[in-house]
């Protein structure tokens, strides 16, 4: 017997290739003000606060500690932090609301990837004894996954290019996107490989930014907004870490999370998928059971805006915003973490019946 929990407010920064004139606190504060201001609440009205970030982007241990000062935690607040994408902070907040100890929650995620070499930084997620010493970067690993998909006969390079072309074109309607382009699949196929079989347009940009959500339960959600986007199911699962121990052309953890979240219980209008490389979108669509009639990544997706540690939460925001506006009745948001889609979260969002 779960409580009904809704996304009642969202905000995000433009996802910029490089934010040099603001530190993380300065980048985050306008988003926090916007997400609260949109529904007229202050920090004291929020029962729980949870964030997601990583020290490996900030280049400093305990980096989230001073960020919290930007939230204005006075008087002291009930607060937690996950060293994960903000989508998992949203999950923790959803659980907190389910305990009954909170009716409202502020969730945020942020990241500045630009100061470092992101593909190499992400290689620090790998097995520290056997894999990480080889420094395989995230683009190279995604290329391995793309190659496995081609070799399996499940997809073609033209399909990769179609994903990239559609995503970049959709991003033209997204003012927060890092990249938007009117490029045909044929033009993309004519590009040289970045890391075969991936071309540059098959890969997400590197973005700096922040995003925030306010959740509210039951009647409190209806008090705060006329258009709550209800979380009807949410679940997350993880696969084996070792790349040689899994079928890279499949995502069993996504499939399982989708089943637990009830994706297939009713038709899906749209989905926002955390696919940072075009082959991954094809893998996710299959694992989620999404047919050709489902609108995929109308925001342009991570191929157009990819703030690491917020990009999963942004998927929830993009889906919830479309449900709140009535553009979609039932949406799926997906977030991922780890090499080659190792860990996956699936969230089903619906409007009022």
């Amino acid at each position, binding site marked *: *017997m779960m*409580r009904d929990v809704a996304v009642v407010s969202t905000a995000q920064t433009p996802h910029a290739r490089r934010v040099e004139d603001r530190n993380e606190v300065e980048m985050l504060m306008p988003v926090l003000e916007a997400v609260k201001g949109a529904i007229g609440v202050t920090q004291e009205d929020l029962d729980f*606060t949870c964030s997601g970030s*990583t*020290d*490996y982007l900030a280049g*400093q*241990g*305990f980096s*989230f*500690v*001073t960020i*919290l*000062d930007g939230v*204005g*935690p*006075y*008087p*002291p*607040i*009930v*607060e*937690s*932090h*996950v*060293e*994960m994408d903000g989508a*998992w902070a949203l*999950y*923790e907040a959803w*659980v*907190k609301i*389910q*305990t*009954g*100890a909170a009716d409202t929650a502020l969730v945020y995620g942020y990241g500045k990837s630009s100061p470092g070499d992101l593909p190499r*930084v*992400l290689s*620090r*997620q*790998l*097995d*520290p*004894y056997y894999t*990480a010493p080889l420094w395989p970067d995230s683009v190279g690993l995604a290329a391995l996954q793309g190659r496995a998909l081609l070799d399996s006969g499940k997809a073609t390079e033209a399909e990769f290019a179609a994903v990239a072309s559609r995503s970049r074109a959709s991003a033209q309607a997204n003012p927060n996107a890092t990249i938007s382009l009117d490029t045909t699949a044929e033009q993309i196929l004519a590009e040289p490989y970045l890391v075969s079989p991936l071309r540059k347009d098959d890969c997400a940009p590197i973005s700096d930014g922040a995003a925030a959500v306010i959740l509210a339960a039951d009647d409190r959600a209806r008090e705060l907004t006329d258009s709550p986007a209800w979380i009807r199911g949410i*679940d*997350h*699962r*993880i*696969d*084996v*870490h*070792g790349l040689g121990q899994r079928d890279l052309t499949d995502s*069993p*953890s996504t499939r*399982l999370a989708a089943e637990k979240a009830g994706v297939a219980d009713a038709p899906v209008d749209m989905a926002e998928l955390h696919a940072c490389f075009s082959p991954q979108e094809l893998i996710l669509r299959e694992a989620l059971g999404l047919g050709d009639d489902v609108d995929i990544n109308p925001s342009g997706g991570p191929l157009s805006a990819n703030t690491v540690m917020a990009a999963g939460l942004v998927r929830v925001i993009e889906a919830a915003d479309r449900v709140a506006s009535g553009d979609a009745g039932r949406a799926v948001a997906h977030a991922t*973490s*780890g090499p080659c889609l*190792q*860990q996956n979260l699936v969230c089903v969002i619906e409007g009022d019946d």
Partner: protein
Amino acid sequence: MAGKERVAVIGCGQTRHEATRGDVSVAGLVREAAMRALEDARMTWADIDAVVIGKAPDFFEGLMMPELYLAEALGAVGKPILRVHTAGSVGGSTAIVASSLIESRVHQRVLTVAFEKQSESEAMWALSLPVPFSPKLVAGAGGYFAPHIRSYMRRSGAPDDTGILVALKDRQNACRNPYAHLHQPEITFESIRDSIMLWDPIRYDETCPSSDGAFAMVLTDEAGGDTADNPAWIHGTAMRSEATIAAGRDYVNPQAGRDCAADVYRQAGITDPRSQIDTAEVYVPFSWYEPMWLENLGFADEGDGWKLTEAGATAIDGDIPWNCSGGVLSTNPIGASGMIRFGEAALQVRGLAGDHQVDGARTALGHAYGGGAQFFAMWVVGADKP
């Protein structure tokens, strides 16, 4: 909703904590604790619905988001795994997040584990919090907390040797705990007093060590607790955070700590902690934090905490034994230290604390803090079902 589901701790496991656990990998370390917790709970990996893991900064091991690499070692493949990081309080908040998964009825059996393998790096530099607009002190956590301790001494009029008494008690307690990092049976008041002054007034022997270690617990719903031999029932959990730097913030007696204690006591029905709590495991990484937290947690009036320490009230045979395991002063794998506090509190009310068991302990407090004394996590556990 029919209120929160009751939650019980039915399995605890920890590693031998040492300066360098060179005999195990990171995966081997967490598995050692997790398997002991499962054995204690009479469970196997298959019985676990979800895993919640906590640790302090990833730079300590040079391993970004280690839960990804640890998925197999923690039996999490095909399951949900959450990674918590709330600075030094993380071991406590990790246990609280695990508990919330059951309280909410999302899951029934959750494995929670916290670890740090500090020998992989030099933790002191990561613990040198930068103060904005100031040159970086690079003086470690001790350099940050020493001024707050001096402020406490000035405000309370405590004698200079209170910290030495705390260190002596905790190091002697550690000799009763086979898992503790430091075993120093030869330690004396004089040897602590004569140890090198690191950050005045904090001497070397009044400082926590740097440890490799892990602690794990199995939490279950009410039905699981009912069928366990000796469950520790969770009577309350609370977390509070406040700013690192804010005008009017009391760094010695932080409001977040007082609010957190008031919240957890309200849930557990505690109005007089000194008489109603039988034993406490409290995060004391520098000796002077015992009298400071005695006041912050309401065991003593403001300014009187040191008097309890001096009178022996917090000794294992005192009326409110604190840190019978030896505490953070004897064992400090940072990310795990909070969970060790929570877990040792559970072991006490389960009657399984071995040579450092407090006779008849039925209600215990577990406490953790972190950052610049700004993040707090606490739980109260009891032998009786709430």
